[in-house]
């Protein structure tokens, strides 16, 4: 069995009157847009504008408070976990905290999605995991649990895991925070490599690291444009 690749492809990504935020705090109201595809997109915006929440919505991990998020003209907010799975298999999501499974070794963390979805032979899984671990200099700590390795390595393991399913779309939320400097180049190289040889097409990155973004970003998506303005003080309003 070779690596399973979902029969779906992402043709369109669109949002219609989307409202989202954190708890009861709505940052973005009425976001209607079509997202650029086949590009490295920098999702930018001021601090607290809701970049992480936006990326979670984009990854299908958060249901917006209101509105629709269309993947290939299908409203993903109406899909169950199982129904969304075909799309999910196309999306790699790496977030700031990472969420490595603490009772598993680094290698098992990377192996988990492939093994769980039963998408490849064991030798292929081993090969793929070894490739990514070596790429990010994690091979020597492969049998350690996340708590026993330095923070930079944990971060690199999280980012490496994003690529494990050979996704078509990658969403990276602050991928460079805590990452070792020489691996920033590795990450850029890996993205470039996967775009030319692999399945990777659409890349969405939220990051403040200008060194990382320089010469790499192809389009910007500014969330500040959609920010809800703070309500004016009462006297001003009067």
């Amino acid at each position: 069995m070779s690596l399973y690749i979902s029969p779906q492809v992402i043709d369109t990504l669109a949002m219609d009157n989307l409202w989202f935020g954190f708890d009861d705090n709505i940052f973005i109201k009425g976001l209607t847009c079509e997202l650029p595809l086949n590009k490295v997109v920098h999702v930018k915006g001021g601090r607290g504008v809701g970049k992480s929440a936006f990326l979670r919505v984009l990854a299908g991990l958060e249901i917006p408070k209101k509105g629709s998020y269309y993947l290939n003209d299908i409203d993903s907010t109406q899909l169950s976990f199982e129904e969304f799975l075909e799309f999910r298999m196309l999306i790699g999501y790496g977030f700031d905290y990472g969420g490595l499974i603490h009772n598993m070794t680094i290698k098992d963390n990377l192996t988990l999605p492939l093994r769980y979805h039963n998408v490849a032979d064991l030798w292929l899984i081993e090969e793929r995991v070894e490739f990514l671990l070596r790429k990010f200099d994690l091979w020597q700590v492969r049998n350690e649990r996340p708590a026993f390795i330095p923070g930079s390595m944990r971060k690199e393991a999280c980012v490496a895991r994003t690529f494990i399913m050979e996704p078509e779309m990658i969403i990276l939320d602050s991928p460079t925070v805590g990452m070792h400097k020489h691996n920033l180049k590795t990450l850029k190289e890996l993205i470039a490599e996967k775009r030319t040889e692999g399945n990777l097409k659409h890349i969405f990155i939220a990051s403040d690291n200008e060194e990382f973004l320089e010469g790499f970003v192809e389009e910007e998506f500014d969330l500040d444009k959609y920010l809800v303005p703070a309500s004016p003080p009462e006297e001003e309003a009067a």
Partner: protein
Amino acid sequence: MGVIASKIWEPVDNIGRKVLQIIEYTKQVLLMVYLSIRAAIFDQAQGMRDIIRVVSMQIYFTGFQAMALITTLALATGSIVIMQSSAQLSILGGSDMIGKLMLIIIVREVGPLLTALIVIARSGTAVASELGNMRVNKEVTALESMGINPLSYIVFPRLVGGIISVLCLAFYFSVIALIGGFFVSRLTHDMSFAYYTASLASAFEVNDVYMFLLKNTFSGMIIFVVCCYQGFQVEKSPHEVPQATTKAVVNSIIYVVGFNLLVTTLFYLKNLMDLGVL
């Protein structure tokens, strides 16, 4: 007048509110059982290897590792019950009832309850705190992002492993308490082992099996689903984890004891109806 009336009705309102809370909680917990079973069945992508691995680990931690504690407790309980009941039955002249009494006390009542309490204390707390920490560390979000349904990957195997463990532990408890307890208490009575086992065998009914299976299967399910549910209630901060664990223990005990009481009551009502008393 309005104030007095509201004071009078306040306790009733409070009871009503509490009852509604319990109903809502029970509904949520049952929904979790349904959703985890549904997720395990419908998640076509999921490989069986991982479910079996998590189930085996749960059985190892909950069942196998608890055996030493269960052995001690079963021997103590069995011998205490045999000592007390054989002494009282000898005075009353009903020594041949020892088997019946032991089955009723150990197999039907004490065994399921004590086993459940041990499992709550050992594994329920572990499951609730593990899941709570997973939520805080965003491990659950990471699982979802990889297309792994937490309900089928985390809850379902723990539920299955928990039910199997509780059933096996309760069976083990009963055997050790009935047989081991006899030998521990050997010095205090002159009953022969053959007489004792014959008494047990003659007292044994099919209903004992039904009651044993019913109580222990549901106790296992209640413990693990309540603990998983409470673990998943943790949202943002690590300080919520001990609170969730405490709630998991308290709620599990309440539900397990309540369920055992309900089954026993229904069982005896049925007995009374069979006898024509009711």
